[in-house]
């Protein structure tokens, strides 16, 4: 944030929503960072949205409340916003602009980097193929998170997505390699923010965590910066320091609403549901910062969390996110209603990179087959459940009834776990086997015969239909 010119401009022409229009400026570039001094002594910050001859439109991160045309002085930094990067961020708790919220000194670093980031050269990308283990059975076994992947959590109001995000942030590891979590909270309530701080205190104390918290009563526009700071810090930790970094960003719906607010203030032509037409590209500029780079040790894995307004998956935020990300973890109100945590819907969830990140040498040799068989069996269970609702249990075949048992076993013995229970992968996979073996062997066609023998899968009972 250095390099401020001595020139301070006072020609405020217009104040509108989060925008201030400054006149008489000279040599101010687009996307430059600005500081705004008020007569009260307060300092605010802004980004240049447009420069037109001697006019500059500045978006004020802290909002324009209390600013007037005469008592406002604006200085421009001469470059787009840069922040210091380095290991100094680890163990720190900051607000949404990256300023300390833990009573400590400002975060310093040997180098500084532009928060806008630079796209990774597609030919220098290394295709992701190793897992991040989260200690959550349903994620590790059925939607394996892969280093360098972007995998969102789709949730709805009232579901425990924050608990899940914190649990994953607290437990995730990369098989003993250097690891760090950057947690960016946007629009969190104070209760939620305290919950996050408490849940991640241990990781923070171990200097494996960077926490950036923008609360619901913090300035809305600041949220546009929070994920960018998080990703900039993460990229440095990954590609310079050689760590595997998991970036958790919650809630992306709050972020998108801030974007919509700025767009509306600028009088831009709205697209779907009044979100700006560039919402896809803007979200992509965040999510696409995940990945691995050839010849460099670290990785950036992105786990955005978003709440689908009214549970609508076709809402622009989940829809555009789904087009960018490599799969999704979907939380279901129905599963949560029966008291299951984490309420992950295994059939709607998918990790597109899992086939590369799971299996022999990465997780366990039987993992891909077990996951595929479990998904197939659960799909059949769901059909049977619908049939049972229609025609009654008594009309079901014995095999169908076993599938109902499987669904129960899945929920009780596999899916359910405590918010602080860190399950080793072997345990999760063994539980998956345990669930699968409620079915007769004839229903387990996707599993190799030798594994079934080893697990002593039950033979067909006489009289059972195949």
């Amino acid at each position: 944030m250095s390099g401020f010119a001595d020139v301070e401009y006072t020609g405020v022409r217009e104040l509108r929503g989060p925008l201030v229009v400054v006149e008489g400026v000279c040599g101010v570039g687009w996307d430059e960072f600005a500081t705004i001094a008020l007569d009260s002594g307060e300092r605010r910050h802004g980004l240049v949205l447009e420069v037109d001859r001697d006019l500059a439109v500045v978006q004020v991160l802290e909002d324009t409340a209390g600013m007037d045309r005469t008592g406002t002085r604006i200085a421009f930094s001469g470059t787009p916003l840069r922040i210091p990067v380095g290991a100094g961020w680890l163990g720190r708790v900051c607000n949404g602009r990256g300023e300390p919220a833990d009573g400590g000194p400002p975060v310093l670093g040997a180098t500084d980097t532009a928060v806008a980031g630079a796209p990774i050269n597609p030919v220098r990308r290394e295709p992701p193929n190793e897992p991040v283990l989260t200690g959550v059975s349903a994620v590790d076994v059925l939607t394996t998170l892969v280093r360098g992947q972007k995998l969102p959590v789709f949730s709805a109001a009232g579901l425990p997505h924050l608990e899940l995000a914190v649990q994953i942030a607290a437990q995730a590891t990369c098989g003993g390699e250097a690891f760090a979590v950057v947690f960016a909270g946007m629009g969190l309530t104070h209760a939620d923010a305290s919950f996050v701080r408490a849940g991640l205190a241990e990781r923070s104390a171990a200097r494996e965590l960077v926490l950036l918290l923008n609360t619901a009563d913090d300035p809305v526009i600041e949220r546009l910066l929070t994920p960018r700071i998080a990703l900039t810090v993460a990229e440095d930790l990954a590609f310079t320091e050689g760590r595997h970094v998991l970036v958790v960003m919650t809630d992306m719906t709050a972020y998108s609403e801030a974007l919509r607010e700025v767009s509306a203030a600028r009088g831009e032509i709205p697209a779907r549901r009044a979100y700006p037409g560039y919402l896809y590209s803007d979200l992509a500029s965040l999510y696409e910062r995940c990945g691995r780079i050839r010849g460099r040790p670290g990785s950036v894995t992105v786990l955005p969390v978003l709440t689908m307004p009214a549970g609508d998956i076709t809402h622009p935020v989940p829809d555009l996110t789904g087009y960018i990300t490599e799969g999704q973890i979907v939380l279901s109100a129905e599963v949560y209603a029966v008291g299951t945590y984490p309420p992950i819907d295994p059939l709607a969830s998918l990790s597109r990179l899992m086939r590369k990140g799971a299996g022999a040498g990465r997780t366990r040799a039987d993992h891909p087959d077990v996951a595929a068989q479990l998904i197939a069996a659960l799909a059949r269970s769901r059909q049977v459940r619908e049939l049972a609702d229609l025609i009654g249990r008594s009309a079901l075949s014995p095999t169908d009834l076993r599938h109902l048992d499987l669904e129960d076993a899945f929920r009780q013995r596999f899916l359910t776990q405590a918010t602080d229970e860190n399950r080793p992968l072997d345990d999760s996979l063994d539980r998956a086997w345990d669930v699968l073996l409620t079915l007769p062997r004839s229903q387990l066609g996707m599993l190799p015969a030798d594994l079934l023998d080893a697990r002593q899968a039950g033979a067909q009972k006489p009289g059972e239909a195949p």
Partner: protein
Amino acid sequence: MTLPGAPAAFPQVLRVAGPLVEMECPAAVAMHDLVLLGADRLPGEVVAVHGDTATVQAYAYTGGLAPGHPVEPQGRPLSVLLGPALLGSVFDGLLRPLSGAGDLLLTGGPDRAPDVRTWPFTPRVAEGTRMTAGDVLGEIAATVPLRLLVPPGRSGVVTAVSAAGGYPADAVLAVVDGHEVCMTQSWPVRKPRPVAERLPADLPLHTGQRAVDLLFPVARGSTVAVPGGFGTGKTMLLQQIAKWCDADVIVYVGCGERGNEMADVIEELAELVDPRTGGRLSERTVTIANTSNMPMMAREASVHTGATVAEYFRDMGLDVVVIADSTSRWAEALREFASRMGELPAEEGYPAGLASQLAAFYERAAAVRTLGGATGSVTVIGAVSPPGGDRTEPVTAHTERFVRCLWSLDRDLAYARHYPAVSWADSFSRDAGVLATAHARSGDPDWAGRRGRVARLLAEADRLADLVELVGITALPPRERISVLAGRLLREAVIQQSALSPKDAYSAPAKTAVLLEAALTVIDRCLDLVESGTGADAVEAVDFTPLLRARESAGPAETAPVTAARDTVLGRLAEAATA
């Protein structure tokens, strides 16, 4: 303010709003001229001139660009370099090579590392020959055999031609009518390359994907749109086509899509062996990678860049396929810029010119007679990503009107893990008629009949499936029960195809034909059996597994295992009839 060192004569930047830049406009600046902005010399294109100002769309991140910074007009339109170095390489949306650029793409675009490769050139004309545009001057032995042509607009006597030997990409190889002809030539991206005439597109493009080849075939020089919501396997299907279709050159334009996916396709193409040439698949492929976080306006240019590259190869008499994934992201770039220009929006904020721009892009596809008299073709396949899966949104709705084929991907099929999820109810191929004639000419007069039968059987099975959900299968008459069975056999034994299967990712015409023949023979026998009094229960109880597994057990071009599987199942049906 003028930057130190910049000549005062340069016009200045007046306004910057993201990719939209306004500049002073000297009289010499024309529409679509290339300009370089600021000290970083960011490329941009003039898109409007009003009075003494011009509007520029910038092809790079404009952070830090300020009013007063200099602009260098280049006096020529945005152009790309076309030559043998294209094959096997990866470029950004403006066709700048990415291979030599760093790990991160910083402002100013990738540096162009000097290309030190050489390509063998063999002259095919003698000095003193009179030639016209499109005539062959010589041959270049790249990974795909190329020709050096007299460029469009030139004709006259060949006054010099290089001897056979290896030359670098920028070598001058001949002089025609006083103009040098270089191995690598420049061409404006928005200007379609001229041809002698357009020919009817009437030869089949074999894609190796049965759902496409059997039901919704595409002709060489035709156009296809592939709409599908997220998770329906669009990119997977397009990558399959890029890998296995029998074109000479593939231009793969990754337009506003995922970086990891691009990395994946680049790596896979470099590893996979072309079944027809024995070389690597990457050697016939030009990849244009403009991922969703790369500058948005380069996305807008990238589809035109792709079409220009395709036309360059077409003019040598080659069959080229352009794959654009996804045209919706391209349309979003158009919308973004129109909005910043303050244009009046039409549907959903898209500019009123969206339909004509889409039409113009798809019209660059054609089967042609080139200026030199050869025949070549450009086939365009574009993915469409409808927001929320809504097929009535403007990009999908307009695209459907302009394309010859539509491969609509169905979410229900994808969720049932039926891949490729090409819906037989919502897709179409307007090429099917001419291709039926082509198949008849090449000795397969029954092709259209078989295709019609498959379509009818699938539609019938779908109709009955709704009924079965209500009343149960046993309530149907025997013949209808066999129709439901026929639908399942066709879907699972013939139409489904796993992109991940080493044996079945590609299906040669012979294998496709024999699989269909096997399924139809089995279906006919089932119908015969119920006609002659065998119970539908007995037929349904027959184990059809060998037939369902035949596509996986037979190699890409094998037919014998399929025939054997058919005979096994026919044997079981015979047993069922006598039981």
